[in-house]
């Protein structure tokens, strides 16, 4: 790597974008929420600009180096979105604006339906009865997700300037990456801000499209094209159910607006009481949509394959933002079940389904992560597992709310949302750190290959199938990549839930409250509760294993010695996010983020929550819960990591030093002795985990038995029946026209004469008739 200088001067074009929010506030005197639409509109205008300019100036030197093939424009638009999001956040948290008017911008009328209604015996058409507006809906969950989405989009776009633009394989196609990246941002921001379910669904689909496009970014690779198709089709299954759910909701409430529905979810259209049976199906359908998007069992198969996309895409879409859309949708269901306000009683079954799906996915994904050797696949399964935690927490919360325990319910829902925040920050960073590792290992590999080609005549050696994501060639990178190693350490700690670091506060809340449901209310909750408890320890194992395999121990290949952490633009996001995961989660927990996110009546952050949070985490009154809490800490912090250390731990080679922030961990990992697990690695269980518990095989077999024969049948029908009819018509008319041609002269003047004679006879006829 020769290009080690900073390129700060390239950031000059984004300054005007940054000035928009302050000038709107101080010069035009706007309220922050009035500017909220710009969060979506500016990226919407930017993405076609990037694509068109990218086509026009493809290969141009200025475009490539000065504007980073559109990356600078994307960064500018995202910076604007971020600045407005922070402005809104400031108004709501620091300036303590209240959430009284949820739909804060008057909806612009957009779509107007005529509705046909049956009144008694006859049908009536009412015109302009229902219109769908474009508005903005802001509450604490929106604020949190909006901040997560804008902040991570910005940082990951920044990271991409280093990651994408220094890779030869992406050259001249990066405008496609940035264009789709910004389009994705539109989808995410729009979904978070939408004030009705229809817009939510539209933006949801935009995200699905971008996910497909970006997974298939390297579309010439067969595996990437396959993965993109798989992701699109799998999430599509969920989306169809989601659409059905929306239709049922519309049938119940006569509207899809949050304002109308959440005003009183127990009263349907025309003042009818809503039956829990009908609502159950609506919510279940929506939940299946969420399961597809958030890659939960049984629609989880697409997420690991989605790692075929470029690493920034994995970081943004498949870890930090898009997969949270499903969770967001489930959180939006809170008013339906909250009988403390206006919810509908009798939906405990639905809450149980949510919790069970979460528990099963959490355990299964963590188990599969044990045997993955691809650094991104470990993170992918970890993402699934952590999202499943949040689903379990939401399930427990919905159950609490539905039986009237609203304090506990709000707490666990808040904890789940807080876990979403912590997980998004940590996992976004972990993926970027893994991207940094992959990038530098790849460069080192290329460097080594150049050297070996220079000094040997032996060409065409075994480097063709080199995989820079394989952790078995790494090891000892802590000394070569200090920033990345530190970032990854903090990220892993947050995910594991080491006490006092980000993820601990939220994860503890989820596990404790799930057990509380199990012990006090609903014995059927035992399975999810047990699974998430076990998963806490498994998380400790697989995250530590990943870190140690990558960064500790002696180097496992010659490439490691050539790795340098030198690419510009990559370190800054890692440093920022390290600080947030290390300290931010702690600070937010102390300020009562859990209550703020869960309880609708708790409208400002304050120190009020600190004692409750601390007591809840370490010394709950119930002795059983205290036991659960301490077991969680024990297995997550001690047993899991120690087992991983025994297998993969070890000192660096002599003569190299890691930085002090991580060297203690490397030393610690070498003190637990070592254990040989090759016997275990050959076992049938390991084989089953390698094959992802055969779910992919099962789905593929089912498809091969059902969908593919059906597709072949319809292809045959199209070719022979539909096309056959048309071809018959064509051949009949052409043979018919040959016969007709036989009676003509082919002389143009004869035709004119016939036309004139015909016209004259028509005139004569008309004359005769009228006379």
């Amino acid at each position, binding site marked *: 790597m020769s290009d080690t200088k900073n390129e700060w001067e390239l950031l000059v074009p984004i300054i005007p974008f940054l000035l928009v929010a302050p000038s709107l506030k101080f010069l035009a005197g706007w309220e922050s929420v009035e500017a909220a639409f710009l969060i979506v509109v500016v990226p919407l205008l930017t993405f076609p600009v990037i694509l068109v300019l990218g086509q026009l100036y493809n290969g141009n030197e200025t475009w490539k180096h000065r504007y980073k093939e559109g990356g600078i424009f994307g960064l500018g638009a995202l910076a604007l979105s971020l600045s407005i999001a922070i402005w809104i956040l400031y108004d709501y948290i620091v300036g303590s604006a209240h959430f009284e008017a949820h739909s804060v911008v008057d909806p612009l009328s957009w779509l107007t339906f005529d509705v046909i209604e049956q009144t008694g015996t006859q049908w009536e058409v009412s015109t302009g009865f229902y219109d769908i507006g474009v508005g903005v809906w802001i509450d604490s969950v929106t604020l949190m997700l909006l901040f997560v989405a804008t902040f991570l989009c910005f940082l990951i776009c920044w990271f991409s300037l280093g990651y994408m633009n220094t890779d030869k394989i992406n050259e001249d196609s990066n405008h496609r990456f940035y264009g789709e990246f910004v389009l994705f941002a539109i989808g995410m921001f729009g979904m978070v801000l939408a004030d009705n379910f229809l817009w939510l669904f539209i933006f949801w689909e935009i995200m699905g499209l971008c996910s497909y496009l970006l997974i298939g970014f390297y579309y010439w690779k067969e595996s990437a094209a396959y993965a993109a198709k798989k992701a699109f089709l799998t999430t599509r299954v969920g989306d169809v159910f989601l659409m059905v759910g929306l239709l049922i909701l519309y049938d119940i409430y006569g509207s899809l607006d949050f304002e109308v529905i959440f005003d009183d979810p127990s009263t349907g259209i025309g003042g009818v009481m809503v039956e829990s049976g009908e609502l159950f199906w609506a919510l279940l359908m929506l939940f299946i949509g969420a399961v597809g998007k958030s890659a939960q069992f049984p629609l989880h198969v697409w997420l690991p394959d989605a790692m075929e996309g470029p690493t920034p895409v994995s970081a943004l879409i498949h870890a930090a933002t898009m997969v949270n859309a499903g969770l967001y949708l489930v959180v939006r269901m809170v008013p339906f079940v909250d009988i403390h306000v206006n919810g509908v009683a009798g939906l405990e079954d639905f809450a149980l389904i949510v919790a069970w799906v979460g528990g099963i996915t959490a355990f299964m994904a963590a188990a599969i992560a044990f045997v993955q050797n691809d650094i991104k696949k470990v993170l992918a399964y970890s993402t699934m597992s952590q999202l499943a935690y949040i689903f379990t927490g939401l399930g427990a919360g919905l159950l609490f709310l539905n039986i009237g325990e609203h304090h506990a319910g709000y707490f666990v829902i808040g904890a789940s949302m807080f876990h979403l925040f912590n997980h998004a920050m940590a996992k976004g960073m972990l993926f970027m750190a893994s991207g940094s590792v992959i990038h530098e290992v790849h460069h080192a590999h290329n460097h080594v290959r150049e050297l070996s080609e220079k000094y040997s005549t032996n060409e065409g050696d075994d480097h063709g199938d080199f995989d820079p994501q394989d952790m078995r060639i790494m090891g000892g990178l802590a000394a070569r990549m200090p920033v990345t190693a530190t970032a990854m350490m903090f990220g892993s700690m947050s995910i594991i839930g080491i006490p006092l670091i980000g993820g601990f506060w939220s994860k503890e809340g989820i596990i404790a409250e799930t057990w509380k449901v199990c012990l006090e209310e609903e014995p059927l909750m035992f399975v999810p509760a047990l699974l998430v408890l076990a998963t806490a320890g498994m998380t400790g194992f697989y995250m530590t294993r990943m870190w140690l395999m990558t960064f500790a121990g002696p180097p496992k290949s010659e490439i490691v010695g050539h790795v340098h952490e030198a690419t510009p633009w990559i370190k800054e996001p890692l440093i920022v996010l390290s600080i947030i995961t290390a300290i931010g989660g702690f600070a937010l927990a102390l300020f009562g983020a859990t209550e703020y996110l869960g309880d609708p009546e708790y409208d400002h952050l304050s120190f009020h929550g600190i004692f409750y949070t601390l007591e809840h985490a370490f010394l709950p009154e119930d002795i059983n819960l205290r036991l659960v809490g301490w077991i969680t800490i024990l297995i997550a912090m001690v047993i899991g990591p120690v087992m991983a250390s025994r297998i993969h731990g070890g000192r660096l080679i002599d003569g190299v030093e890691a930085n002090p922030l991580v060297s203690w961990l490397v030393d610690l990992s070498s003190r637990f002795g070592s254990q040989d697990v090759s016997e275990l690695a050959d076992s049938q269980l390991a084989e089953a985990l390698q094959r992802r518990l055969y779910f992919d095989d099962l789905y593929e077999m089912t498809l091969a038995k059902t969908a593919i024969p059906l597709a072949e049948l319809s292809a045959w029908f199209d070719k022979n029946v539909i096309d056959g009819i048309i071809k018959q018509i064509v051949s009949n008319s052409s043979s018919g026209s040959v016969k007709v*041609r036989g009676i003509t002269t*082919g002389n143009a*003047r004869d035709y004119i004469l016939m036309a004139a004679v015909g016209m004259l006879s028509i005139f004569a006829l008309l004359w005769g008739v009228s006379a």
Partner: protein
Amino acid sequence: MIEASWIAGLGVILFSIGLLGAFTRKNTIVVLMCIEVMLNAANLNFVAGASHYSDVDGWVFTAIAIAIAAAEVAIGLAILLSLYSTQETISLDEANILRN
């Protein structure tokens, strides 16, 4: 002021000339010109009617018809060019491949 019926009569005469020419001539360009003559005879009738009834509609129709006639001539000449380039003749008697 000339009577409208006189102008209409002129239109009839022009139309007949055009029609006769279109029947009898074998040079395609002349046929095309004859068609234009017929078209303008019809236009003349419009104009006559318009001035007789003091109604502007006839003028407008005529203006539109002339504009369309220009387009039609362009297409007609283009057909002639392609006819010549494929058949090497523009004689109507020889361009009769539509016959079986």
